């Protein structure tokens, strides 16, 4: 009983970490510029395809592809940000939705053109496969890796935002954009960097997600809902909140399936709705 | 409702409000008789706007009572106070940018008349409501621009629209928060003549920094300093009082 609980917690936490990597970027950019970027998962998909290509075409080792997918997603995202998104910061959020959804459509089609609609397989190195026992609990090697990796990323992120000048600027911009501008902070610049960072993380998430949820052109749409759920529950612009939300949703999703499989599919939505009704601005949200 | 003679239109007793350690309203007790023109003056940060927020229910007091025509309204929400006749305008324009003045004021009238839930008849069908709205706009010299979108209006006109919206609710007591804030002098006189010509059974309390206007319009003046009432009296008494000179007239807002 207890071991099974531990197992569920472990798997749920791992799944949560994946959700966190995929969502955190959107949360920050949404909180910072109120820019509704529904194309966020497109950048995750880009990361995923970069990894797949490097492994299957160029025969790279899995780990080596991760930094590349991060950089690729970040670079491409910043191109879009500079050429298209930045023209819409003052536009209505509806227009922002339309533009980014259009982008998603295009990316889905392009992915299908290049990679066809087939599921992209990714073969992990042996040391990331299988599982091992710890006190009767079976721990998936890859999940453990996922958790450690995500925790490291999170730590780096927090340090970057809490203890660097850049981080201070970003936080100022999230708290109060007008005042930040008043203080002579280059908000747009800070945003561009944050945006790239967030998309890069999404790209990482995309690469890491393949092994658990697979990868095909519909990825950019399929994951949008989950990311939005995490972001809204976590609260805009709050890394801690996003983290908590991702873990909470990951675990409750997993627990729901293990303990009440008959309502397993409702779980994540029920949790989201009740959390939002309790705290409309999200767990650690600032503005209501 | 007709309130028994002598009952003030609006009164507060022992009104308190503090944000953390900062006391913004300290034992405020005022009583505004029917139809009087009151000016509320005091240096910035004296708590004038806070007082209005407390009286209109935008803020909840930590202690004390607010009575409107003798009825205790301390527990009521803003919209309920409005429907009972306690209405305010905003220091910073808070309007409906994409509605034109005619629509906006008609909207206010319809809400007052409780016909705003009717969706099977056109607004134009309610002749009385529309005419009333138009008359209000005329009285405030907004008739010529009443079909322009609000966001296109001149600033002074927007200030007038603030008042027009308030009037449309048939207020008994009207609280004007710096009605002339940011309005050029020439326009502001026009604005205050409008205020001055308001029907005499409306009690008016207005915050204003321009002393000339205050002394010309107000029949009585309340002076606030750091969250408390310093004194209350006729313009002459106020201008004669040395304390006021020292804390206020001598100060920043000469």
């Amino acid at each position, binding site marked *: 009983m207890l071991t*099974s609980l531990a*197992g*569920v917690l472990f*798997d749920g936490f791992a*799944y949560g970490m994946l959700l966190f990597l995929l969502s955190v970027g959107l949360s920050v950019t949404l909180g910072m510029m109120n820019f509704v970027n529904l194309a966020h998962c497109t950048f995750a998909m880009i990361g995923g395809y970069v990894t797949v290509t490097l492994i299957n075409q160029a025969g790279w080792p899995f780990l080596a592809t991760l930094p590349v997918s991060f950089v690729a997603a970040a670079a491409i995202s910043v191109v879009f940000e500079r050429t298209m998104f930045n023209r819409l910061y003052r536009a209505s959020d509806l227009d922002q939705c339309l533009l980014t959804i259009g982008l998603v459509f295009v990316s889905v089609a392009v992915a*299908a053109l290049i990679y*066809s*609609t*087939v*599921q*992209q*397989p*990714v*073969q*992990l190195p042996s040391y990331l*496969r*299988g*599982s091992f*026992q710890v006190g009767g609990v*079976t721990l*998936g*090697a*890859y*999940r453990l890796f996922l958790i450690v990796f995500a925790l490291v990323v999170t730590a780096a992120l927090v340090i970057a935002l809490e203890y660097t000048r850049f981080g201070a600027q970003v936080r100022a911009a999230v708290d109060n954009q007008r005042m930040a501008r008043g203080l002579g902070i280059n908000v747009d610049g800070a945003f561009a960097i944050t945006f790239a960072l967030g998309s890069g993380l999404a790209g990482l998430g995309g690469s890491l997600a393949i*092994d*658990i*949820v*697979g*990868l*095909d*052109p*519909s990825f950019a749409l*399929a994951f949008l809902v989950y990311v939005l759920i995490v972001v809204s529950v976590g609260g805009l612009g709050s890394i801690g909140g996003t983290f908590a939300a991702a873990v909470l949703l990951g675990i409750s*999703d*997993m*627990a729901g*399936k*293990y303990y009440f*499989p*008959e309502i*397993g*599919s409702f779980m994540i939505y029920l949790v989201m709705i009740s959390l939002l009704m309790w705290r409309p601005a999200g767990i650690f949200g600032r503005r209501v | 409702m007709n309130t028994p003679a002598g009952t003030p239109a609006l009164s507060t007793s022992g009104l308190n409000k503090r944000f953390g350690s900062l006391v913004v309203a300290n034992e405020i007790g005022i009583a505004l008789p029917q139809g009087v023109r009151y000016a509320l003056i005091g240096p910035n940060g004296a708590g004038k706007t806070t007082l209005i927020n407390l009286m209109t229910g935008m803020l909840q007091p930590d202690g004390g009572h607010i009575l409107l025509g003798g009825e205790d309204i301390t527990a009521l929400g803003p919209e309920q106070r409005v429907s009972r006749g306690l209405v305010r305008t905003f220091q910073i324009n808070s309007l409906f940018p994409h509605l034109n003045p005619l629509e906006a004021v008609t909207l206010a009238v319809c809400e007052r008349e409780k016909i705003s839930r009717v969706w099977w008849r056109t607004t134009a069908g309610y002749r009385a409501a529309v005419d009333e709205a138009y008359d209000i706009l005329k009285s405030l010299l907004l008739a010529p621009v009443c079909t322009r979108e609000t966001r296109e209006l001149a600033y002074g006109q927007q200030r007038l629209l603030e008042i027009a919206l308030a009037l449309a609710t048939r207020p008994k007591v009207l609280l004007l928060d710096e009605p002339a804030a940011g309005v050029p002098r020439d326009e502001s006189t026009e604005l205050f003549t409008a205020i001055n010509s308001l029907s005499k059974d409306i009690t008016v309390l207005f915050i204003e920094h321009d002393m000339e206007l205050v002394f010309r319009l107000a029949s009585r003046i309340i002076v606030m300093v750091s969250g408390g009432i310093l004194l209350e009296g006729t313009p002459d008494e106020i201008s004669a009082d040395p304390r006021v000179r020292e804390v206020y007239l001598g100060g920043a807002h000469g």
Partner: protein
Amino acid sequence: MQRAMTGLAIATAALLAATSAYAQGTVKIGVIMSYSGQFADPGSQIDNGIKLYMKEHGDTVAGKKIELIRKDNGGVAPDVAKRLAQELIVRDKVDMIAGFDLTPNALAAADVSAQAKKFMVNMNAATSIITTKSPYMVRTSFTVPQVNEALGTWAYKSGARKAYTLVSDFSPGHDGEGAFQRAFKEAGGEIIGSARYPVANQDFTAFLQRAKDLSPDVLYIWVPGGPQPAAIGKAVAERGIDLKKTKVLGQGELTFDEALKGMGDAGLGFITAFHYDHNHQSAKNRKFVADYNAEFKRNPDMFSVGGYDGMHAIYEALKKTNGNTDGDALIAAAKGLKWESPRGPMSLDPETRDVVQTVYIRRVEKVNGQLVNVEFDKLENMKDPFKARMPKQ
């Protein structure tokens, strides 16, 4: 009024038959499938099967040119499927409709086929009842009960007594669950537990842990193609389920190529029942696979063979009617067709118009470095057991 309606239907049908007769020299086939969205890949595989058949056998049959009109159904959307079928027949004057990746879409189009008396070839949708919805429909794929009852029977024969079933929580999954449990119980086995996982589920560890806790002899899994099979395979390994103690059984999708590529050695030993795999050992199939790879740079799968044999059925029927595209003539010609398909011997049941074929039991093994499904047992001439049980009218 019912009579009035049918009368009207016949009238329209007659009219349509007339109009289509004008389309001399060419036979127009309306192909309705999901070319986009979540189900795009099956769609394109079926399409590849069609393309390859036409490449091999030319595009003229009985002196008539075959012309395809492709329409995108874009996923589960019977309303769209029905509209497209109607438009194809009324506007584009097609002589028959084919394709149909998903059950609801096939069912919706079946109404149109019945109403307009148009020949319809269901190349994939696998729910039993579909073929009963139009007397002009044949199926060249398989049916869920056909495969899974075979598996259930075989499982007991192979010595398993306690089974746990885990299926996707939507109708095909429920059908698979029902078929397997029925056959397994009829043989004498016991179902010690079962779960249905959410359709969009991504992470299976929780469900598998549950199953593992009960340590059954066989763990039956029904999963649609897509990302889930690989995910399940990996989760099985992660949960440390010992395949010697607990056999993992499933319908063919569980061990599709991309699934095996994804799960790697974790898949070794999975046992699946299916009607086709590119590893099926026959001269015909080897050629088929070779040509297919030459053409599309990937292996054919059950979708491809469904499309391929679907075209075969159309060609053969047209030959028999020598080009007459009248619905009644075509269906009459199609009934009882027998041929050697890449999947092995198959035929169209004269009564039910449904596919009759061999169901293979395969185990995942490593053959010169490649994970493949190796057939080691088979049940021949399997009809759709569901219809066999249905009262004949």
